[in-house]
């Protein structure tokens, strides 16, 4: 590799939709990289299919392609844009794999484009597990003993010298996909069979299992001169055997002696040198605490999930520096952004402890086993900063916003919650999402550290620290009232929240806050400065702790216009609340900056752009919960607080915040309540004469049954105040209702259950709008592809609407505007409608920015959040534009579902949201846009392959036409007898296979062995759906798309036809937007 200052233009490849194993950390890294390259005068072309990202903002890169991340589209982009280089190291494994494909298939050579930062050989050296092992061993380091196998027979042969237990890993897959442990011969055979099928090379690696060893990770920067620095060292709380992405991790390392750490550091440098790359990389190690043997696990020659964490944990902008190193700079050429005058060739020194805890969503995936292993299952994560491990751990725990909010005390008493002993022992020994609380319970139950260690293999230092929390809790319980100040202070230093203390002493959170205030115990603000205070730093990056010195002086609220505003972020990513809300918060900060208003961001999600300290004027890396938000308000004295952009998390706080005197900007708290409280909402709609599904409330089984009968089935059952349709269920008759009630009543707790009359067979429409209280601008109307009843987040949608009549669209827009005016919306609002028989029903009003805002912003070329932010601060909207204008292209949003990662979960869609991410396809026709979205979502349906139809009678007529289309395109249809007959009478041939219920498993085999590439499954009733479950599970396992709605099928057939007509054409977002009519142009 040579100096590459001659690089004038670069293609940056993003990571696509958010999936388990690849989250929004790559929006953070991509955004930083794009900015860094632009700073260097490089022309940046970007490709990413994920519209919810900041990196795809049209104002960021010079040319932004929201196109599927496939070889074909990248090639087409390279043909249009004459770039010199491709930067493949900032878009996760997806980007790296794409770059490899472009190189291997000769595109790069043909077009004279090179990879920067890392070359093909280096990628191979790191990614090919056997080649990597050889490299590590040549360097004189140890790796787990292993062998390769191409078949079960070969695997069994290996057992002769490689004893069980083993870990089986397919070559060339990402995120630990397809890997697993084999403890017995039977498990081994199954794992090898599966692995051989999953690996693109049909090869698996069998490796000595070192479960229970300590696991570590080092984040390394390396430049072209071979200079390096470790930016952050990370220790896994969960030992080997749990994927790092699913492990609680701590930075910096806590339990390594300097000698051990330095050995690891040197090994990391040596390995990175031998692989050879310029930029950021990580190296993972395991250490046997019994013998001190250290082995190298893997190396990623790119910026990773842990790099995002490392970046936030230290304040060192890893992605930015990595991008510059890829251009050929050396570390010493670049300044450290935090301490301007010192160099980037620097290893951050921390004077705090950082804890990351993953966020899982097992409760949404019935059937998913809550067992953690070498494949990642979490959907997000939180990070917390504290002065001790205990404090950081407890802060992280409450950042999760899970049901168990605090490690100690609150809500359910874990000591009784997890018992009896055997359950506890199992929870400890089999890693799972609740292990931390199980450890706490074990401490309370009197288990010794040695006992817990024996079951968990977690380092006793961590366990002892958790025990210290449990012991202190016990001590607090026995204290006289009021608690002596020095002991109260100590509890805060151990990370106890006011809420926890309240539940220990039978007091409210507010009472504890008052008690603290009386004792003069206030949180202090400390800075994250990369250098442990050695140098004066200007970073506006802070956290709260309980110490002597506070590093920010108490602010003064301005009496005049709004000068300083707090923006509350959305916390950890989870199903239903993801990166979209981070996009909104970042845009709000940008809008405030443009208006000359100071912004203060509060968030705890290390994967995000919002937690980059240069996005806002001040960043507080803190849990988005009442106590912490109030503390920040107390320090900063802002003129207002914005709760509209972080999803439901901040919205759930508005009532309490309002009561404390801080000014909640935007829509009034009362209006928020009118929209969210279904009773008040229904009154509002009735008052406006807007039709909406009738609803009823029930606190008991009997009430629910009576209500359902009054409303008449089908009805929709929902717990109060939810996001992402948590625990919502569609019930079609009495039997289904009684079956669903039990779980629903358990999950309610916070209020009565609600029952809605279900609008059957209706079209669903989402509308986003902005209002200044009087004027209303409709941002976008999105027509769903799937019918109402499938959660809006899991349904594909298209804008502008495709099949709704002009009058209906007008009515929807007018109705939205009336609702917005009636509520006095200041900022954004989202309204969901069902359309049936030319009538519209309002399903829901969300008095906040919705999940679709970034998608709509890209589809319309308008930065709606900026407009909304201005409106919230009192600016008038420039126009009153209730009718959205015509647009010369279609934009389709498609969900990305995690069933390939959770193959034991039924993929049938319903009112409970389960997608983890989304993609966007843009095209001049709907068909083209839809197909692009499908490709972007990873659905590749090989031409002329076999398609299986399992369709209930009531849908048979409707699928004839699409079936014919598939047949004409050369697909071969496979059906059961009834469907086969119907098709034959329409002149469509099909291969008839027996029903599974007959006991014949031929279909499952065809799906399993990959002969069938697409499954169409539509069932009439819940019961029939159950029967088909095996088909869906088989398709999950085989990673084959399974279409469950007529509308979805029709759209897919149209899409497939469009690619048959010719290759996909690509166009940049900037080009699309330039073609938009004037309305968009008028707005900021």
């Amino acid at each position, binding site marked *: 590799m040579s100096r590459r200052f001659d690089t004038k233009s670069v293609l940056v490849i993003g990571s696509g939709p958010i999936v388990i194993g690849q989250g929004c950390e790559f929006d953070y890294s991509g955004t930083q990289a794009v900015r860094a390259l632009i700073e260097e005068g490089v022309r940046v072309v970007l490709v990413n299919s994920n519209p919810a990202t900041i990196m795809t903002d049209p104002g960021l890169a010079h040319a932004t392609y929201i196109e599927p991340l496939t070889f074909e589209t990248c090639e087409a982009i390279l043909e249009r844009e004459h770039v010199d280089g491709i930067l493949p190291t900032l878009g996760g494994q997806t980007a790296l794999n794409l770059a490899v494909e472009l190189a291997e298939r000769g595109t790069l050579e043909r077009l004279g484009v090179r990879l920067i930062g890392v070359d093909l050989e280096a990628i191979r050296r790191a990614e090919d597990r056997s080649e990597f092992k050889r490299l590590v061993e040549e360097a004189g380091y140890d790796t787990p003993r292993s062998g390769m196998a191409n078949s079960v027979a070969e695997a069994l042969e290996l057992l002769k010298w490689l004893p069980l237990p083993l870990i089986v890993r397919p070559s060339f897959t990402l995120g630990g996909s397809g890997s697993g442990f084999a403890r017995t011969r039977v498990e081994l055979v199954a794992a090898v069979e599966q692995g051989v099928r999953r690996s693109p090379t049909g090869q698996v690696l069998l490796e000595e299992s070192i479960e229970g060893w300590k696991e570590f990770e080092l984040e390394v920067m390396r430049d072209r001169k071979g200079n390096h620095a470790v930016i952050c060292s990370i220790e896994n709380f969960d030992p080997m055997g749990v994927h790092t992405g699913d492990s609680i991790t701590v930075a910096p390392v806590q339990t390594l002696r300097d000698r051990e750490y330095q050995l690891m550091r040197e090994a990391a440098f040596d390995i990175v040198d031998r692989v050879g790359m310029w930029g950021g990389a990580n190296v993972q190690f395991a250490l046997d605490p019994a013998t001190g043997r250290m082995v190298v696990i893997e190396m990623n020659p790119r910026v990773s999930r842990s790099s995002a964490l490392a970046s936030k944990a230290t304040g060192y902008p890893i992605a930015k520096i990595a991008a510059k190193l890829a251009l050929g700079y050396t570390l010493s050429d670049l300044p450290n952004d935090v301490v301007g005058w010192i*160099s980037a060739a620097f*290893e951050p020194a921390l004077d705090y402890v950082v804890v990351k805890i993953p966020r899982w969503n097992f409760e949404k995936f019935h059937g998913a086993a809550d067992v953690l292993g070498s494949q990642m299952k979490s959907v997000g994560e939180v990070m917390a900063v504290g002065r001790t491990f205990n404090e950081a751990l407890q802060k992280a725990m409450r950042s999760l916003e899970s049901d168990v909010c605090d490690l100690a005390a609150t809500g359910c008493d874990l000591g009784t919650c997890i018992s009896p002993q055997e359950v506890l022992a199992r929870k400890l020994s089999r890693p799972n999402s609740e292990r931390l609380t199980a450890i706490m319970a074990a401490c309370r139950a009197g288990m010794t550290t040695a006992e817990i260690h024996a079951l968990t293999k977690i380092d006793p230092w961590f366990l002892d620290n958790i025990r*210290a929390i449990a012991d202190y809790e016990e001590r607090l319980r026995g204290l006289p009232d009021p608690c002596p100040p020095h002991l109260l202070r100590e509890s805060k230093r151990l990370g106890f929240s006011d809420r926890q203390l309240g539940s220990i002493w039978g007091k409210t959170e507010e009472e504890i806050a008052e008690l603290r205030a009386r004792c003069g115990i206030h949180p202090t603000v400390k800075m994250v400065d990369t250098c442990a205070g*050695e140098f004066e730093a200007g970073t506006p990056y802070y956290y709260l702790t309980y110490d002597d010195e506070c590093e920010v002086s108490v602010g003064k609220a301005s009496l005049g216009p709004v000068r300083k505003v707090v923006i509350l972020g959305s916390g950890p990513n989870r199903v239903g609340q993801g990166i979209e809300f981070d996009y909104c918060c970042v845009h709000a900060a940008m809008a405030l900056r443009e208006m000359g208003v100071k912004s203060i961001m509060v968030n705890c999600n290390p994967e995000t752009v919002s937690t980059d300290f240069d996005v806002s004027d001040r960043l507080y890396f803190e849990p988005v919960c009442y106590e912490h938000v109030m503390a920040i308000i107390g320090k900063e004295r802002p003129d207002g607080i914005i709760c509209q952009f972080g999803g439901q998390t901040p919205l759930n706080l508005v009532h309490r915040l309002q009561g404390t005197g801080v000014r909640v900007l935007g829509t009034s708290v009362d209006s928020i309540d009118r929209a969210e409280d279904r009773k008040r909402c229904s009154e509002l709609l009735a008052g406006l004469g807007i039709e909406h599904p009738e609803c009823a409330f029930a606190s008991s089984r009997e009430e629910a049954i009576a209500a359902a009968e009054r409303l008449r089935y089908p009805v929709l059952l929902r717990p109060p105040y939810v996001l992402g349709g948590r625990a919502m269920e569609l019930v079609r008759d009495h039997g289904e209702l009684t079956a669903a009630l039990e779980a629903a009543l358990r999950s309610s707790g916070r209020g009565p259950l609600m029952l809605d009359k279900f609008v059957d067979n209706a079209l669903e429409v989402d509308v986003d709008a902005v209002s200044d209280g009087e004027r209303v601008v409709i941002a976008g109307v999105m027509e769903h592809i799937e019918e109402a009843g499938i959660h809006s987040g899991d349904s594909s949608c298209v804008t502008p609407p495709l099949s709704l009549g002009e009058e209906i669209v007008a009515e929807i827009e007018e109705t939205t505007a009336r609702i917005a005016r009636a509520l006095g919306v200041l900022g954004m609002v989202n309204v969901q409608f069902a359309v049936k028989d030319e009538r519209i029903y309002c399903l829901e009003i969300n008095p906040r920015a919705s999940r679709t805002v970034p998608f709509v912003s890209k589809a319309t070329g308008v930065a709606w959040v900026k407009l909304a932010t201005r409106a919230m601060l009192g600016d008038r909207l420039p126009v009153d534009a209730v009718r959205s204008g015509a647009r010369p292209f279609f934009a389709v949003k498609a969900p990305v579902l995690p069933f390939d990662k959770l193959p034991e979960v039924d993929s049938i869609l319903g009112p409970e949201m389960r997608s983890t991410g989304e993609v966007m396809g843009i095209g001049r026709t709907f068909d083209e846009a839809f197909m692009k979205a499908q490709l972007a979502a990873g659905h590749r349906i090989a031409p002329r392959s076999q398609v299986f139809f399992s369709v209930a009678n009531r849908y048979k007529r409707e699928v004839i036409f699409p079936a014919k289309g598939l047949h004409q395109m050369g697909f071969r249809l496979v059906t059961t007898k009834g469907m086969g007959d119907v098709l034959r009478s329409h002149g469509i041939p099909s291969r008839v296979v027996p029903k599974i219920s007959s006991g014949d498993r031929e279909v499952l085999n065809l799906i399993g062995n990959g002969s069938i590439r697409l499954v169409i499954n539509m069932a009439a009733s819940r019961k029939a759906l159950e029967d088909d479950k095996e088909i869906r599970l088989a398709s999950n396992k085989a990673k084959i798309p399974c279409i469950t709605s007529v509308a979805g099928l029709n759209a897919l057939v149209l899409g497939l036809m469009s690619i048959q007509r010719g290759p996909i054409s690509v166009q940049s977002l900037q080009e699309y937007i330039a073609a938009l009519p004037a309305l968009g142009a008028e707005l900021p």
Partner: protein
Amino acid sequence: MSFVDRPRGRLVLADGSQFDGYLVGARTLPVRGELVFNTSMTGYQEVITDPSYAGQILVMTYPQIGNYGVVAGDSEREKIAARALVMRELSPFFSPAPGRDSLENLMSDRGLPGLTGIDTRAVTRCIRSRGAVMAAIGGQTHGYDELLALARSQSFSRGESLVESVSGSPGSTAVAAGGRAAVVDLGMKKSILTRILDLGVSARVFDAAFSAKEVMGGRFDFLVLSNGPGDPADIPRVVAEVRGLIGRIPILGICLGHQVVALALGGRTYKLKFGHRGANQPVIDRGTGRVFITSQNHGYAVAEDIIDAGVSLTYTNANDGTVEGFADDARMIACVQFHPEASPGPRDTSFVFRQFHGLTEGWRDVEAF
């Protein structure tokens, strides 16, 4: 297991500021010393046993200290020279392993008093903005005024006695084939000797009372001047002896040793505002442009005009540009301000020993010729 039940203690700075915490370790109070901070995140045992901290109260900026206990082999010297250790939290637990003991036991056994529960970041910021400062630590029986008076009773510790207090007893190591080294212990970290022996040589260790004559009489292949505490200007006798050796034997100077050579060459040293102490100091190799992360512990630095003495600068600090090393091939001098022996800290520069050894090979033959 919390320290809230321990007796309270207090740190008072000469400028009057005070910080409250709890007492741990030895109870030899009150103590006074120059207040310095170290930013290493691992290696507290090596740090507190480094004799260069003689006379100083050491503040660790990393907030949890003692997590993995202490092990016999990790001490740089048996005797602890630092006056006291100040921490945000002394970890009440340590990750167990055979042969490990708690840090607090080590402190109590070796007479090192400590304070825990201190806002060490606030103390660090104090030092950073006001520069090095004297301070005192006392327990409940020591009033603020008493401690303030103590902190103010003396300016910075004088070097001569400091070096003497930590300079070890002379001795020799087993004969080795690779050659013979003379090592002057000005308060040497054990690891320096280890690294020298790793070269395959034998070594004779001299204490600070050594003379040039002794060294020349021993027909050594090279001389190493170790690290040590304080201001090099306070040990003029050592400087004078070294002056007598320049050009007559290859000399490797490390840290205080490097400063001594600079003075012997007629250069100057000066006190840094608050020194470099930590494991993350980047230095640039002026020859190759490469950057190394180094371990450092010094309060004084060599002034850049050392080049007037006819040496060339080999290393400079990438952050503040201070002199990190100089050399003169003709006079067989190689000196570094940083610690190539690491312990604790990065071993990026362990090549310094090998490189120096390589240069010294065969010099006698050349001389004879």
